[in-house]
Structures are given as structure tokens and as C-alpha cells.
């Protein structure tokens, strides 16, 4: 029986690869959007504008304080009642980018604030504009403490993308859920799903650890 199910599962492998492609599409698009929005919000959050800072802070708290599944449901079910009809796919990307952006915002802000104040003062004294300061002095130094947790955050976004299967996005988790109705071997089906996620996330986790070690070494050398 087991080998029969195994052969069945191997025959539906193309279906799994399609699901994996959907996972990569949802997570990839959200990654890009979250990075861009997160950096902009993070730079504002580390700036001197108190009002903008506390608005972003409150938003980040709201996102951090609620489960991602609830956020997905809010985007998918509640935005339509405000007149914005969304398919499952864009709803998933919006929810995931919003969640990712608010976490990346905190990473970027704390990276910027970790750059010693004297660097900025020296830049001001050299006559650089505030954009030039950010571009040439602050961000390049902040990147050292931003990049390792940023890669870790990417892993979280990829893993959290499994949750959007709940609103019917046919990603690899949803494919597993659909397959297990037909092939009742949960360990085998979700073992395969797990291996597919592992293949993406494990190298990224190691990359993050490697960069963290490398970047702290450079920091102590300086």
C-alpha cells in the first residue's frame, strides 16, 4: 500500500513543483516589496520627526501584536467591504509585504541608530547634505548590522507564506493539503512539502549565520 501511495505521490510531483513556483512567486514579490517599503519606513523611523516616528511605531506594534493569519483574513475579507475587491493572490502579497515591511523597518531603524553620532556630525561638518550623509556615511555602515537579521527575516517571510494557503492560494502547502485528501499518507505528503521548504530555507539560514559571524569579525578588527 505504501509503495502504491509513493508512486501516486511521485506522479503528482509536477503539481508540487507548480505549488513551489507559486510559493516562490508570493514570497519573492513580497520580499522585494517588503524590503523597499521597510527601508523607507526604517529611515523615517530613525529620523528626528517625532510624529512620523510614532505613527510608524504604532503601526509596527499593531502588526507585531497580531497573528499573520488574522492579518491575511483582514486583508482578504475586510478590504472588499471597503470596496476593494481582491483576488487571493494580490491579497496574499499585500498582507505578506505589509508584515515583512514592518519587521524590516525595525531592523533598518536599529541598524541606523547603531551608527555612532560622531559619524553624522563629521559628515555635517564636511558639508554633506542629509541625503548624502545617508547615502555615503550612515547606510553603508548600518548595512553591517542590517544584513544578517534581514536574511533571517527573509526566511520568516518564506515560511509565513505557507499561511496564505488558508485563503486558497495554491502554494506548495495548499498542494499538500489537496493531495492528502487523495493520498491519505500525511507523513509522506507533508514530508515532501517540508523537504521543499527546507531546500529553500536551510541555505538561507546558514547564509545568515555565516554573514553574522563574518560581519562581527570585521567589526572587532576595526
Amino acid at each position, binding site marked *: 500500500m505504501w509503495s502504491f501511495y509513493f508512486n501516486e505521490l511521485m506522479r503528482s510531483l509536477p503539481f508540487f513543483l507548480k505549488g513551489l513556483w507559486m510559493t516562490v512567486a508570493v514570497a519573492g514579490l513580497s520580499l522585494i516589496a517588503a524590503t523597499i517599503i521597510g527601508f523607507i519606513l526604517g529611515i523615517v523611523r530613525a529620523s528626528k520627526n517625532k510624529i512620523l516616528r510614532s505613527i510608524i511605531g504604532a503601526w509596527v*506594534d*499593531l502588526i*507585531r*501584536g*497580531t*497573528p*499573520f*493569519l*488574522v492579518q491575511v*483574513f*483582514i486583508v482578504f*475579507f*475586510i478590504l472588499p*467591504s*471597503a*470596496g476593494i475587491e481582491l483576488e487571493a493572490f494580490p491579497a496574499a502579497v499585500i498582507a505578506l509585504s505589509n508584515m515583512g515591511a514592518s519587521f524590516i523597518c525595525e531592523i533598518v531603524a536599529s541598524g541606523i541608530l547603531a551608527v555612532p553620532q560622531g559619524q553624522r556630525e563629521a559628515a555635517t561638518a564636511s558639508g554633506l547634505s542629509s541625503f548624502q550623509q545617508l547615502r555615503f556615511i550612515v547606510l553603508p555602515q548600518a548595512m553591517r548590522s542590517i544584513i544578517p537579521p534581514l536574511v533571517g527575516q527573509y*526566511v520568516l517571510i518564506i*515560511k*509565513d*507564506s*505557507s*499561511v496564505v*494557503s*488558508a485563503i486558497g492560494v495554491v502554494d506548495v*502547502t495548499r498542494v*499538500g*493539503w489537496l493531495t*492528502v485528501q487523495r493520498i*491519505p*499518507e*500525511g*507523513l509522506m*505528503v*507533508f*514530508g515532501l*512539502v*517540508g523537504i521543499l*521548504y*527546507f531546500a529553500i*530555507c*536551510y541555505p538561507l*539560514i546558514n547564509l545568515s549565520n555565516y554573514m553574522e559571524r563574518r560581519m562581527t569579525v570585521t567589526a572587532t578588527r576595526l
Partner: protein
Amino acid sequence: MLEAFNFRVILEYMPLYLQCFLATLWLSALSLIGAILVGIIACAMRLSQSKAISRTAGVYIESIRSTPLLVQLYFFYFGLPSLGVMLPEWVTGVFALTLNSGAYYAEIIRAGIQGIAFGQIEAGIASGLNYFQRMRYIILPQALGMTIRPMLGQAIVLVKDSSLLSLISIMELTRAGQLLTSDRFMPTEGFLTTAAFYLILYYLLKTFSSWSEKRLIFMEAH
């Protein structure tokens, strides 16, 4: 969208919400206790001299951290029955949450223990303290001070992750929102109330986290 917000329905469903709030608390607390125990054991195994034991713990930790919780949850939910193990849904849910957070706790505890300089332990031995005295007065106070914040952070993640249990039809906060959506077609009222309850838990844990940090630094200064 908000002008049609129906507070009467929320009041009507309030007993259900409170019941589900308690269920979320209860499920999270059980998983939290389990996860810390699993984390301590896995961390002890990871730091073991024996390569085989250390590798086993490493495989457990890495495979949990590289796959989404939802996939792990489905793995046990659909997989255990095919092994002939029939458990109530909530037991499967708590089991998956415990194993998931356990891997993260193992890493947090390991970082705490490895963060203590070996010279501290040597100094303890040189001062004639026995093993328990060293643990009680030197290692644990420092390890606790260093790990309390990430530990509470992981507890916040665990409470939010418990929302995924709604997908295997366990009654908890997110499920209450789903019920309000399916029974009354009121997703706005349903999920915003759910989110509000999670935010209460989030702010409680967050406040506790910053309080404990101040308190521990205070203790250390003395």
C-alpha cells in the same frame, strides 16, 4: 466600512470570544511549558560531548527552523492517524506548537549559556563554590538576565502561532472570527475583535518584557 460596524453582534458573541480567549491562553501556556522543557533537553543534547547526541539535536533544531509551522502542524494532523495514532485535535496542536517553539528555545538557551565567559565558572571553582552554588549564584542569574528578553519574544511568537490551530478546527480566538464570518457574514467585526484580543496579550507580554529587563539590570547592579 466602519459606519456599518455592528457592536451589538460583538456583544452577542462576547461569551464565545471570552471562552476562545481562555482557550488561546490555555493552549499557549501548555505549549510554552512544554516548549521550554523540550528546549532545555534539546539544548543539553546539542551541547553534549557525544557527536551522535549532538547531531540528533542539531537535525531536530534545523529541520524545525527551516520549515513552516503550518506544514509541521499538517504533518502531525494528517500523519499521526496513518500511523494509527488517534489524538484529539487540540493535543496534536499543542504537540506541534511545543516541538516548534522547543527548537527556538533550545537556541535561545544555548546562546545564554555560551554567552557566559568561562572565566566566571573557573572563578567560581577557585572560590570553592560547589556545582549548585555556581549554578545558583553565577551561571543562572547571568543566563536568565541574558535570555529573558528573547524568551518572552518567543512567547509572543508562540501566542500568535497558536492562531494556526484554527486551521485544524480547534476552538480558539481566530476560529471565533471565522465563525462570525461564516455564521453572520461579518468578517470586519469578527476579525477585528479577534485582533483586539491578541493585542491585549501582546501588550501584556511586551510590558512584562521591558519590566523584567529593568528589574534584572537593577538586581545585577546590586
